[in-house]
């Protein structure tokens, strides 16, 4: 293997290596089409129409109602949005939430994945216990954390008081300034197993002999991580943080169960805001417009973040 000394596992040249196919469709030969098409059919049927429909609604005045007609209104909804202070406030909260959860989650999960990848006793048990948050239904997570954060009957305050960290009970979920950090912790907790499992799987593509060789060369743990582990893990790590960011930005269920967006709107995430527009006030068009705006915002972040990766891939 010539690449043994260059630790970067570069994606191979994506040219088909087999003999050039005779007939192609959009650059795919028959064999490739045969492999790809089964996956594409359900995706197209069951998500293309709903998605296009959802996007279109954002440019209309659609409202909830039986057999209601609606019409195309161009950018009206977006003009409303620009002047909607509630939207901007929730947008700010959404950014804090999405970046906070994604970043903390990534580092916490990376540490855990590295630990779980070691040869340790009872590894199967440790790995199983580590995914407990993932296995729990969201409603239960919400109720459980409300009890943990409960001001006078919660475990958290009683532990902190015993440790002498705090003197009096802290109102985690109902103080205007603490509520958002408190729900971010729950967000990290709930999302860690998934990120950990994916990173753990990603660690399997790190070549053991490279790490060993680096160790023989006298590299310390950090250097070995930088030179060998990280380059191999990078594609997976990028993919996962991107998706985590998108998911976190789009998620609101957990926060909804925990705080319903309170106190004083301090945890009203943008999608919770959009959800209320659609399902509480029947304002489908405005909700869809909010969705479209969010998609564009996220797309900008994702493209900025992945620019280097995308270039590599080309």
């Amino acid at each position, binding site marked *: 293997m010539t690449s043994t000394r260059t630790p970067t596992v570069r994606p191979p040249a994506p040219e088909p290596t087999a003999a050039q196919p005779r007939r192609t469709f959009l650059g795919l030969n028959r064999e490739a089409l045969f492999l790809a098409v089964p996956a594409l059919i359900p995706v197209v049927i069951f998500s293309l129409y709903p998605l296009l429909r959802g996007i279109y609604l954002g440019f209309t005045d659609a409202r909830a109602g039986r057999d209601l007609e609606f019409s195309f209104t161009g950018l009206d909804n977006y003009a409303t949005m620009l002047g909607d202070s509630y939207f901007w406030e929730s947008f700010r909260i959404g950014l804090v939430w999405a970046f906070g959860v994604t970043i903390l989650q990534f580092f916490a999960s990376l540490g855990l994945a590295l630990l779980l990848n070691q040869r340790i006793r009872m590894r199967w048990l440790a790995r199983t216990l580590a995914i407990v948050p993932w296995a729990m239904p969201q409603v239960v997570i919400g109720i459980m954390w409300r009890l943990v954060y409960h001001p006078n009957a919660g475990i958290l305050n009683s532990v902190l008081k015993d440790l002498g960290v705090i003197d009096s009970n802290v109102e985690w979920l109902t103080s205007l300034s603490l509520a958002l950090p408190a729900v971010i912790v729950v967000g990290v907790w709930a999302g860690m197993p998934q990120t950990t499992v994916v990173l753990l799987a990603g660690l399997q593509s790190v070549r053991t002999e490279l790490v060993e060789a680096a160790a023989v060369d006298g590299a310390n743990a950090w250097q070995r991580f930088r030179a060998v582990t990280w380059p191999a893990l990078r594609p997976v790590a990028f993919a996962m943080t991107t998706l985590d960011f998108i998911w976190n930005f789009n998620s609101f269920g957990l926060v909804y169960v925990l705080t319903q967006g309170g106190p004083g709107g301090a945890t009203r995430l943008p999608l919770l805001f959009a959800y209320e527009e659609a399902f*509480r006030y029947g304002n489908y068009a405005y909700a869809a417009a909010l969705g479209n705006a969010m998609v564009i915002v996220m797309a900008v972040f994702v493209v900025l973040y992945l620019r280097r990766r995308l270039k590599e891939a080309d």
Partner: protein
Amino acid sequence: MKSIVRRATVVTAAMSTGLVLAACGAGDSSGTDDGPVQLTFQALAFQPESIEANKEIIEQWNADHPDIQVEYLQGDWASVQDQLVTAFEGGTAPDLVHYESSYLQDFADRGWLLDLTDMISDEMKDDIRDGAWDAVTFDDSVYAVPFLLDAQVIFANKALLDQAGIEVPAPDDPWTWDEFAEISRKLTDADTYGVAWTLKDPANRILNLALNFGGEFFTESDGASEVVFGDAEKEVLQRIHDQLYVDQSAAPEAIGMGGSDPLPGFFDGQYALLPKGIWFRQQIMDQAPEGFEWVTIPALKGESQTQAAAPQTVSIAAETEHPEEAMAFLEYLLNAENQATLAKGDWMIPASEGAAENEVLTETPDWPVAAASGAILEQAPFQTVRGYEEWKNKVANPAIEEFFANSLSMDDLGSKLVDEGNAILERYQR
């Protein structure tokens, strides 16, 4: 793999049946011409006792009416809004829907609910109190039959009352807000707060209590509603705020609580008084430690004891294919006797006056207080305001929470409620 293939075949068959049905224009709840009429009723019963009551009523009905069969579906409060909105949009709503009056107007405006005005029997009209009917009537059309009512009362730790030498007031001689403030101060000491106001999503509660001093929050002129915020509206807000920050007789940690959050503190004697809805009796009974003595204090009196009647209701979906049969079942489901059973199951006040006499209810603890609370319930202006839900969720709940957290002044609260509120209401009046 094999079983999946088999499943797929079965489902394909089911699919084509579904398509055929759809092609015939038959909905999901249809019966064929020969068989009995099939109705679905989605209830939000939650306590085992009330689930049982619902099921028994339906079983009895099904036994008596072989040609109209009702299927019981259990919904849940946490997600019923999402579910109903989607089901009504998709044409798959249950024939009969249990919900509460505050959502009816929006649903009716969207054409989802059947206008029941001319379908309700005189007997039922007479049996159910007027305040409850008002709450389900919009532009002279009735969109539901009301059945369960709640009222704001106060639960008290009996031992702490006795210790302080405080008498329990009789239902016909309730505490005034001044007396309540005084008593809360008296009950406050190093270990105990006089009162625990749980003020999560407080708008409904505050608007309800504001009626005690004539605070109506909305005025209507030419069919258009506007938010008002004057002295009458400020009264209750100021009094509770004073208890928190002037008297310090109200527990500061309780303001963010909802549901059963305050119970551990209440049982532990940290809070002497706990203002809550009458239904909360059940929670206390269920969870109180052995030997814990508690008592229900009647609703407070300002200029009056008036509170808003916001009943739970049963409506009929506009899309139902069997409106008459559905109404027949509804008349039975909510007759005086059944309302008594259902009210007992949920520890609430029946909208039926006949039911309130039923000994099923009169034997429950502190029933006289509950019965008296039924009489103070009236329709409130905010209940017929179009856009109230959005005003409440978007503006009022957060702003009032900030006010009670002492990070918003009364004046700022007022300008938020009025200016931002009117901007929202305007959209609904177009």
